[in-house]
């Protein structure tokens, strides 16, 4: 990765979410890291053989770090490969992607972690980091080899879309993981209360669909946080979706528990009404909630109670989506659209650009213990250059993902990524 030529980006609006600093200036990259940045539009000297990119005042920020994406490799390559997910990520400005362990075979063995790391290195344009299963076979009964999997390169432990329901297994996993410094990530949903297919309420009643109450989420979250208090293991709630969960997390953080949480880009930008006439691309887990919940999670993000935004990228093909709503699979793709969808909140005045980028880069990098997610001399040169105002209409046919199940089909969005670098190497570029 270090053999790519130096890159110099001139006349950029440098936005560093880690420090909150914004300035007009330049940034130089060599040997995979940021080597110089400054307020002058041009540097004093251009390094030999450097590729000069004129940013024309566009935003230069750290590449995004996405803590939750499903990739079909190994086992479901027809849905998404590391290569196709990598192209989607690069185009969307995501430079680090954590892949969920629900593959076939699942990532519950160090050999699978090793395979994924090698395969991603050889085929993917961006950094792909495997998350390992928290329990063997994702069955929720026995914990995986947490220490060996970490040594192999697993960044955290989760059963993906499945909640770990057994309180004894959760207690022991948190306790055991604590001494390895391992992070446990939970899908906070009590499955016995989540038999429905959309948010419980008037709309579900009108559509004749069984609902999922908010209590499916809050019950599991509260239980887990009790266990965190007992064990002091590091815990991250993968995605919260409602106002009550925000209060629960706020309380836990105030009490000093080692807790962080995320939110899906979809829960920030959409609500249950977007389902309209049974649109299955908006069938998600956690389900899209009421507008009051959406505004509560947006406020919690601005306030920092919610730490990170995830794409929850989950490619599903026609077979699993073109079905009656109750029978369709959950999930939507999101790697390529999360920045533009997030910018929708910025344009609507719901959150500032810096807090948005912080939740998409600095915070997840910090939680994962990664050096990226900041504009700093010596930091990895994972960078994105984007025009936050440039409008476009989303054409699913042009998306890089193999599956096209985007909830933003034909949506009018703003925010085009013109350049993406990973360790100083240009992995996505559009002219102009």
């Amino acid at each position, binding site marked *: 990765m270090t053999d790519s030529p130096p890159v110099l980006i001139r006349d950029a609006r440098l936005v560093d979410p880690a420090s909150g600093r914004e300035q007009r200036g330049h940034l130089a990259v060599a040997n995979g890291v940021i080597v110089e940045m400054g307020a002058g539009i041009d540097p004093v000297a251009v390094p030999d053989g450097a590729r000069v990119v004129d940013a024309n005042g566009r935003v230069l920020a750290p590449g995004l770090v996405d803590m939750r994406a499903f990739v079909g490799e190994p086992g479901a390559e027809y849905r998404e490969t590391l290569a196709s997910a990598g192209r989607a990520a690069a185009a969307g400005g995501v430079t680090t992607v954590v892949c969920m362990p629900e593959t076939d075979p699942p990532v519950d063995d160090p050999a699978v972690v090793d395979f994924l790391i090698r395969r991603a290195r050889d085929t993917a344009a961006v950094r792909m980091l495997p998350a390992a299963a928290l329990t063997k076979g994702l069955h929720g009964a026995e914990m995986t080899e947490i220490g060996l999997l970490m040594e192999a390169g697993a960044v955290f432990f989760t059963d993906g879309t499945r909640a770990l329901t057994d309180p004894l297994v959760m207690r022991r996993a948190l306790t055991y993981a604590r001494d390895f410094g391992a992070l446990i990530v939970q899908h906070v949903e009590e499955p016995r209360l989540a038999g429905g297919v959309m948010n*419980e*309420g*008037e*709309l*579900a*009643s*009108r*559509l*004749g*669909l*069984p*609902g999922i109450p908010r209590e499916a989420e809050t019950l599991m979250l509260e239980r887990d946080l009790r266990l965190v208090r007992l064990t002091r293991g590091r815990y991250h709630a993968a995605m919260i979706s409602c106002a009550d969960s925000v209060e629960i997390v706020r309380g836990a953080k105030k009490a000093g528990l080692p807790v962080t949480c995320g939110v899906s880009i979809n829960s920030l930008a959409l609500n249950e009404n977007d389902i309209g*006439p*049974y649109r299955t691309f908006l069938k998600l887990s956690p389900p899209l909630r009421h507008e009051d919940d959406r505004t509560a999670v947006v406020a919690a993000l601005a306030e920092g109670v919610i730490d990170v935004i995830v794409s929850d990228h989950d490619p599903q093909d026609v*077979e699993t989506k*073109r*079905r*009656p*709503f*109750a*029978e369709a699979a959950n999930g939507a793709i999101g790697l390529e659209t999360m920045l533009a969808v997030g910018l929708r909140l910025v344009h609507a005045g719901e959150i500032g650009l810096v807090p948005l980028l912080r939740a998409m880069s600095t915070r997840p990098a910090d939680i994962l213990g990664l050096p990226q997610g900041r504009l700093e001399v010596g930091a990895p040169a994972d960078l994105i250059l984007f025009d936050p105002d440039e409008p476009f209409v989303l054409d699913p046919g042009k998306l890089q993902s193999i599956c096209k199940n985007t909830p933003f089909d034909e949506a009018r969005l703003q925010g085009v990524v013109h350049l993406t670098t990973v360790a100083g190497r240009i992995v996505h570029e559009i002219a102009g």
Partner: protein
Amino acid sequence: MSTTPRFPHRHLLGIEGLSPHDITTLLDLADRAVEVSRQVEKKKTTLRGRTQINLFFEASTRTQSSFELAGKRLGADVMNMSVASSSIKKGETLIDTAMTLNAMRPDLIVVRHHAAGAVQLLARKVDCSVINAGDGAHEHPTQALLDALTIRRNKGDIRGLVVAICGDILHSRVARSNMILLNALGAEVRAVGPATLLPSGLERMGAKVFTSMKEGLKGADIVMMLRLQRERMNGSFVPSVKEYFRFYGLDSEKLAYAKPDALVMHPGPMNRGVEIASDIADGAQSLIREQVEMGVAVRMAVLEALASNLPNG
């Protein structure tokens, strides 16, 4: 030739989306169809040359035969397709089935499906008119129309009537369609049942909610009972059949809470001794058999109204 009043819809997917005028148009047409059905010569030629497919993914005796008879009385060629004999069981998706049937160029497809929204999904993929004969717990528009027709013929006007819909409202498409229709025509709608069988948001759907039959039936003009599915009787939603009948089954004692001239309805098939006592089902206040007759008439009206919008119609 009598002209069919204008009905500005290509499909009938639900009561939702129909104006009060659309509803009364269909009810007026149905009144005329009742007369036709009571003649010795029951055949009309409105649908001569038209093909109607009844596509039932869920077993139904009453609704399917009612649609079949309605189509035949209007002169259509009617084909019944039920799930047992179709390729759905071989893994074909709903969309594939829709495309296959569409290629056979039917004029009208009547669909029942166990999943809410399935009929809408299918309607998006075909060129002909689609009638929803029940989709999951969503809607069953022709049932609501036949109930309204039955009420109107017995009470004169629907406006101002108190209609108590009782029982398993949570799983009932009949209840949903009826709530929308009765509200549109100005009735006072009540939803009565144990709280485990009442969906959330009922008040916002225009129903007053009661968990006691005594309160809910007080002053009612119409008592509409719903079927309780067998799998929901034993401990999952209600503790037992015995307990359900004691507190929510319609017997003479509970019916006495309603107005003296209250009328009793049930969409069928009935569970006698579960949601309704036999003597009430067969009693003088019962409209249950008349509902079946109105069912054919309403379906004739719907087929005629949609056919008038078909190409070359």
